């Protein structure tokens, strides 16, 4: 009976008893969720246009953030460093298309996936060679990102929202809207979607595979830079950030590999649910640290019922 009480009653009683704390938990979950969604978006974009599962998205986040900090350490003003970092991500996109992807056109998906593992290893080594392995501070203030906090007292309690987190949420929302508009309202965006739907058909109407691949890898680079700034502002920039990117995998399993909406909703769901589970069930009943596995279990559970994820396209193959 006690056991059932601890699972079914006490967590909800705790939420009701300290609603300000619950709001703090939800806020932290929301911020994590937005950032997971951003990383997942990078994966989805590349997958939609090329059917490549880009294993390098995580290290691209680290590489982009390190490039930004690196330029600034060389004395370049913050916003010019952003522009130069975008330039580097563009060069990276062109190089990946020319050196890695173009020679592999027509190869099975698994070969392209393995190629992105190669890109990951290269970027780790190259990044460490250029920037070293030390933790770096994100140039948060230099970029004009506010570093203060908003403090509220809901229900007579205490709720703290860091301004940099609020900024991250706002920027992520703007980025997602811009991305959706780009994909739905522009010629290039429609070309990306066409390529995702059917390579052969897209090529037959004159859509350039090379141009689109460079474009999507560059957009993934932009997303990586924004994600790197947001995560870096929270906990510093180091190669440990790459590990966080793996949290995007259950987001993709949950939301579906092709769906931008799925990436966003999947990210938010995982961010919120894993935080709620950890605080109200994981820590009191399982000794904590459930965030390392909760998202994967949730995603597996969803896959049992919807193998294509919540928003993925149902694949029908006729034999």
């Amino acid at each position, binding site marked *: 009976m006690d056991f059932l009480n601890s699972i079914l009653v006490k967590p909800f009683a705790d939420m009701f008893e300290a609603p300000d704390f619950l709001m703090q938990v939800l806020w*932290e979950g929301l*911020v994590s969720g937005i950032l997971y969604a951003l990383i997942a978006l990078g994966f989805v974009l590349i997958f939609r246009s090329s059917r490549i599962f880009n294993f390098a998205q995580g290290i691209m986040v680290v590489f982009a953030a390190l490039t930004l900090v690196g330029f600034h350490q060389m004395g370049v003003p913050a916003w010019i460093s952003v522009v130069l970092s975008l330039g580097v991500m563009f060069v990276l996109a062109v190089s990946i298309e020319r050196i890695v992807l173009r020679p592999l056109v027509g190869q099975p998906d698994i070969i392209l996936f393995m190629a992105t593992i190669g890109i990951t290893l290269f970027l780790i080594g190259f990044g460490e060679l250029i920037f070293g*392995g030390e933790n770096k501070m994100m140039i948060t203030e230099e970029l004009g990102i506010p570093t203060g906090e908003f403090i509220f007292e809901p229900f007579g309690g205490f709720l703290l929202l860091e301004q940099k987190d609020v900024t991250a949420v706002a920027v992520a929302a703007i980025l997602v809207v811009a991305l959706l508009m780009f994909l739905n309202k522009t010629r290039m965006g429609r070309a990306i979607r066409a390529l995702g739907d059917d390579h052969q058909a897209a090529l037959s109407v004159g859509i350039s595979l090379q141009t689109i691949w460079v474009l999507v890898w560059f957009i993934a680079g932009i997303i990586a830079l924004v994600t790197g700034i947001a995560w870096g502002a*929270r*906990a*510093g920039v*180091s190669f440990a950030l790459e*590990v966080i990117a*793996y949290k995007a995998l259950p987001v993709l399993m949950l939301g579906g590999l092709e769906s931008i909406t799925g990436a966003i909703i999947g990210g938010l769901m995982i961010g919120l649910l894993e935080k709620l589970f*950890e605080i109200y069930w994981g820590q009191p009943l399982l000794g904590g640290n459930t965030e390392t596995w909760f998202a994967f279990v949730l995603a597996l559970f969803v896959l049992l019922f919807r193998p294509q994820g919540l928003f993925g396209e149902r694949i029908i193959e006729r034999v």
Partner: protein
Amino acid sequence: MKLWKQLAAATALTVIAGGAMAEGLYAPNMAYRTGPFAALGIPLMNGQADYMTMLNERDGGVGGVKVDFEECETGYSTEKGVECYEKTKGNAIVTQPWSTGITLQVLPKTNVDEIPILAPGYGFSPMSEGGTFQWAYNPPASYWDGAYMILSHIAGGDMASLKGKKIAFLHLDHPFGKEPLPLLEQLAAEHGFELVAIPVGLKEMQNQSAQWLQIRRERPDNVIMWGWGAMNSAAIQEAVKTKYPMEQFYGVWWAGHDPDLAAVGDKGKGYKSISWSMPQPDSALMADIKKYVIDTGKTQTTEDQLNSVFYQRGLVMSMMLAEAIKVAQEHTGSAEIGPKDLRWGLENLNITDEKLAELGMAGMVPAFSTACNNHTGHSGAWILEWDGAKFNQASDLLQADQSVIEPLAKAKAAEYADANAPWPVTTCGG
């Protein structure tokens, strides 16, 4: 034909390289200059390497024999660490595994290969029991020493005053992070304080909001952090964010890295870290390091690292190895020593204050000595406190109560030997 010539040339080069490696005293170090823990590894490895370079340049090595100090990169991965051990053990006089996980993996192997492990301030705390762990040394203090001393400082020297307190133990969910738990659990039961263990997964090191929400909910009197690498800087930033009183926040000696605190500056004021090493910028050693290593460009160290806690701790670590080599050389009467001789040296280290002064290292580490039944030395340690810009000494030399630690170490050592039977055990002095 051309291919055969190339193969022959490659073979010849390998033989030459192998021969060259065997010259001098080969002391491999399992470094981690890459990966999520590199921020800590780099200054420590730089300190270790620079001390040996300084000895090679100034004195021609140790006892006239150069030290071949080679790094094998592990990225702090246990699997890679074991590979490094296997790759380097051939000519090695010592193995320096550099992670509790790697130490635990190579521990049984070193018994067979008869190579001493030198794990300064890390590894498995019961390694102090030389009768059971005949090839493993963790001077000058074990994790259990560290945990006891932190609690003792919190208690103001009177452990009974901990009764009724709540102490959160924020730790990496890894063999290193869990290492002090047996002692802390025993002390919590003995002294009546509540211990709240809060694990941080490797994947969550930079995303600790859940752990700090738990700390906010639990409202512990103190937080003790057993963190490594990126975990420490993220925890310190979360502590600042959640407005946890920094003067009640303590870290192990690997959680006292200057740049981690510099990132929060004044907001980190009052944060404390236990440390068995203390930077001494004006020491004679630092003058020699500058003269023979930094100014000659034979280093990877940057100027801003020189007076940091971790760089100078790296120097102290290599000093221990160099002094053990000297002891072994004196004992055998030969400058060329092997791993068995070094084991004797590590077991008979006597680092006195006079010796430290002679080495130009006065005050850099407390005096300690090792013996067969004491592979740790139990030097004691200081509390360092962050003042907003740097760490300062904030306590006299603290000591862990060995009457509490030794029985636990003996019990856990016996448990380990039983679990790994047949495990060779000897009686010290017997």
